[in-house]
């Protein structure tokens, strides 16, 4: 009984300690498109290795940067005009995040990375405009439903007219 209580307390503590974070990152453009899923998987693994729970994420995509960035990798200064931008939302304890950040700073695959506090819910508002396509689909379905409804109505109307004529 005592053990279960202790476990409960631990769970409570974990619940209060963990927070929702978002990792935005830029990967080096020298990674080939074939190896991109591998790197993407590695990032997810890295997060889960620190006890993180991935909530949502997006595959890194090639992006032309708004300005050229520089990074020194093994004593050679590299200049980047493009990079793969991706992000991951995850739950992690507040202490582990600092360790994760240290780990990311040492990684040579990253041009830059940014860890932010966020909320669990989807925060991208531009998807509302993207949803325009999915909004069209239900309207199409509705139109088909309306058509069938109209057909039924026609039959009923015909019957009614016949009845009227018969009278």
């Amino acid at each position: 009984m005592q053990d279960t209580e202790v476990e409960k307390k631990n769970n409570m503590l974990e619940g209060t300690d963990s927070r929702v974070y978002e990792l935005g990152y830029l990967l080096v453009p020298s990674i080939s498109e074939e190896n991109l899923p591998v790197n993407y998987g590695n990032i997810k693994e890295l997060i889960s290795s620190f006890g993180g729970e991935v909530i949502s994420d997006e595959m890194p995509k090639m992006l032309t940067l708004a300005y050229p960035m520089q990074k020194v990798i093994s004593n050679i200064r590299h200049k980047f005009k493009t990079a793969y931008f991706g992000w991951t939302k995850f739950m992690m304890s507040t202490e582990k995040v600092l360790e994760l950040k240290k780990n990311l700073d040492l990684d040579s695959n990253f041009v830059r990375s940014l860890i932010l506090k966020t909320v669990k819910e989807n925060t991208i508002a531009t998807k509302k405009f993207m949803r325009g396509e999915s909004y069209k689909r239900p309207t199409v379905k509705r139109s088909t439903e309306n058509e069938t409804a109209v057909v039924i109505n026609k039959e009923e109307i015909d019957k009614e007219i016949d009845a009227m004529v018969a009278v």
Partner: protein
Amino acid sequence: MKQDYFSANNIKFIDYKDVEILKRFLGPTGRILSHKRTGVTAKNQRALTSAIKHARFLGLLPFVVK
């Protein structure tokens, strides 16, 4: 933009990845517009500036447009 854009569109969390939205609040040289010109509430203006600055850091938005 007289009314608060974010409360009008029911945006509770201003995301740095929403570049299309953030671009509305940049001037022709890439500077953040003042709250006087954006009409955004003080709270949202603070969130907006930090979102723009995060987007700039990750190369999604420019610091300066020449």
